[in-house]
C-alpha cells in the first residue's frame, strides 16, 4: 500500500509538543484532505437541497447525492442503489432497523438474538424493542478465545427467533465473525439478519450480497468520511416491506390531514433534509480507499496488528484480549495500572489510545475487567507508531513503580 500519511493534515499537528500517534481509529478516523476538500467544495460550488428543486443547482446537488449512493452500493456490493439508505451513522441505522423491523415482525413472546460482543448500539435498540413488545432477548455467549460460540448460536436459533443481530467485527477484540455462515443458519431458522458493519467496512472488502445480510449498517466517520453520515444497506424486498421510520418531508407520496402514503425506497427512510455534503464526502472517502485498494488496506492492518501484538506481548505484565486472527484492534491491560491511567500517560507522549468499556459493557463483564486499553490501526499508521505506543507503555510502568523488564 502506498504511504498515505501526507494526505492527513492532522498528523502534522503536534500534541504536547510531540508527533501525534493516532491509535483510535476504531472510534473515529482522521480525514485525508481529499475528503475535507470534497465537503468544502460541495458547499462552495453546488450546495442546494435535493430532490425538490427544478433549478440547476438543485439538480446538481441531487446528482451528487445520488452518485454518492451509487458509489456506496458499489463499494459494499449492494446490487441495487435503492437498497442504500443514508442515515447519521451505525447507531441510527440500527435504531431504524430495530424500530421498523420490530413493527413488521415482532410480537409478544417472539425472540430476538444478539451476541455478548455487541457494541451498545447493536444491543440497546433491541433491548428497548424487546421491552416495548414483551419479546424475548437472548444473548449468545463467546468462547474463551473471544469468538462467537457457534454451538450456542445454533441453540438460540432452535427457538426460531424473528431477528438475529450481530457484529461483523468486534470493536474490542477484533474478532471477525463468519457472517455468511451465521446468516445462512439464521435464514434457515426463518430469522431476519441484521449486521453491524461499523468495524468491517472500513477495514475489509465487504460484499453484502455474498454475506447474505438482510440489513447491514456502517458509519462514514470510521472510514475516512465526514461525521454525520452513515448507511443502512438492505435488500430492496425487505426495505419495501418495512414500515417507515421518521415521518417528514421527502418520504411521502401524498399527505392527507391525518394519513399519508409513502415514497418508494430508499426515500421512504430518508425523511427531512439529508446530509448531502456528508454523502459527497463519503463518496470521496470511498474513492480514496478504492485507490489504496481494500485488499492492501486489510493487509497493511494485518501486518501492523501482528507487529503490535508481538511488541506488546513483550511488555511485562501486559495482557492481550481476543483471538489471534483479527482485525486491526488490540485491547489490553497492563499490570494494575488502570486503562484510564494508561491513556493519560501515553497521551503525554503524543499517543492517542482509548480506555474504557468501549460501549461493550456485557463483553467487559465476560472478560471480567471493568475496562481495557485499546489501540486501533488504520491506513496512516506505521510500525513507528507501534514502537511509540510500546515506549509509552514502558513509561507508564516506570511511573507506577515497575522496574524495566
Amino acid at each position: 500500500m502506498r504511504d498515505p500519511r501526507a494526505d492527513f493534515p492532522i498528523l502534522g499537528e503536534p500534541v504536547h509538543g510531540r508527533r501525534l500517534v493516532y491509535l483510535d481509529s476504531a472510534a473515529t478516523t482522521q480525514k485525508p484532505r481529499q475528503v475535507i476538500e470534497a465537503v468544502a467544495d460541495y458547499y462552495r460550488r453546488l450546495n442546494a437541497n435535493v430532490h425538490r428543486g427544478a433549478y440547476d443547482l438543485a439538480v446538481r446537488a441531487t446528482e451528487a447525492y445520488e452518485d454518492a449512493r451509487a458509489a456506496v452500493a458499489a463499494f459494499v456490493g449492494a446490487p441495487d442503489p435503492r437498497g442504500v439508505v443514508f442515515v447519521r451513522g451505525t447507531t441510527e441505522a440500527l435504531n431504524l432497523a430495530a424500530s421498523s423491523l420490530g413493527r413488521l415482525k415482532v410480537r409478544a413472546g417472539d425472540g430476538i438474538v444478539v451476541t455478548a460482543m455487541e457494541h451498545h448500539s447493536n444491543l440497546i435498540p433491541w433491548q428497548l424493542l424487546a421491552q416495548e413488545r414483551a419479546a424475548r432477548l437472548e444473548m449468545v455467549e463467546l468462547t474463551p478465545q473471544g469468538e462467537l460460540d457457534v454451538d450456542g448460536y445454533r441453540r438460540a436459533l432452535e427457538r426460531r427467533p424473528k431477528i438475529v443481530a450481530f457484529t461483523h467485527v468486534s470493536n474490542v477484540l477484533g474478532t471477525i465473525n463468519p457472517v455468511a455462515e451465521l446468516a445462512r443458519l439464521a435464514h434457515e431458522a426463518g430469522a431476519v439478519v441484521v449486521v453491524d458493519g461499523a468495524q468491517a467496512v472500513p477495514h475489509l472488502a465487504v460484499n453484502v450480497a455474498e454475506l447474505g445480510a438482510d440489513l447491514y449498517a456502517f458509519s462514514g466517520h470510521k472510514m475516512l468520511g465526514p461525521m454525520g453520515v452513515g448507511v443502512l444497506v438492505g435488500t430492496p424486498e425487505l426495505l419495501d416491506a418495512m414500515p417507515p421510520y421518521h415521518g417528514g418531508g421527502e418520504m411521502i407520496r401524498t399527505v392527507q390531514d391525518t394519513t399519508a402514503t409513502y415514497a418508494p425506497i430508499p426515500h421512504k427512510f430518508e425523511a427531512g433534509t439529508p446530509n448531502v455534503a456528508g454523502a459527497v464526502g463519503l463518496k470521496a472517502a470511498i474513492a480514496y480507499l478504492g485507490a489504496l485498494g481494500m485488499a492492501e488496506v486489510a493487509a497493511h492492518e494485518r501486518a501492523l496488528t501482528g507487529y503490535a501484538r508481538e511488541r506488546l506481548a513483550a511488555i511485562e505484565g501486559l495482557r492481550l484480549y481476543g483471538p489471534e486472527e483479527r482485525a486491526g484492534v488490540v485491547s489490553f491491560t497492563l499490570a494494575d495500572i488502570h486503562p484510564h491511567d494508561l491513556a493519560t500517560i501515553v497521551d503525554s507522549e503524543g499517543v492517542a489510545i482509548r480506555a474504557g468499556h468501549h460501549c461493550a459493557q456485557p463483553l467487559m463483564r465476560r472478560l471480567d475487567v471493568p475496562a481495557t486499553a485499546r489501540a486501533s490501526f488504520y491506513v496512516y499508521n506505521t510500525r513507528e507508531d507501534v514502537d511509540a505506543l510500546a515506549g509509552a507503555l514502558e513509561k507508564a510502568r516506570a511511573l507506577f513503580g515497575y522496574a524495566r523488564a
Partner: protein
Amino acid sequence: MPEAEGDGLAELYQELILDHYRRPRNQGSLEAHTSRVALANPTCGDELELDLLLEGGTIRDVRFSGHGCSISQASASMMTQLIKGKTLDEARRLAARFSEMMRGSADAAHDRALGEARALAGVARFPVRVKCALLGWSALEESTRDHP
C-alpha cells in the same frame, strides 16, 4: 507540595496517590449505614459505592468500594479519611474546597484542611481526569443531599 513541572505526570502519579490507589483507606461496606449511594462514570466505567453512617449530623463512619483508575480510587480513599468524624457542614465545606482545587485554585491547593487530598491538585491540569477525582465527592454530595 511538589510544584507542577514537565508533563505533570510525575505529580499526577506521585507515591502518595499510588499508595492510596493500591491500599485504599476505609475500603469495604458498612453493615450499619444510614445511606448507600452507587455512582458510575459512564465515560470510563469507573464505579463507586459509598456507605455513610450519620449520627446527629456527624459522619460517624464511612466506607467505599468499587473500581476505577488511580485518581478516582485515591481521591475517594483520601476523602473518606477527611470526612470521617466531621459534621455534614464541615464535609460540605471540604467538598466545595476540593472542587475549587479541581478548577485550578492555588489557594485551595494550599488549604491544610484538605490534608492528603492536596496531593491531587495536579489533576486540575488533566481536564478529563477531574471527573475521576470528583467521583467520590459526588457520591458524598448525593448521600447528603436530603439532609439539612
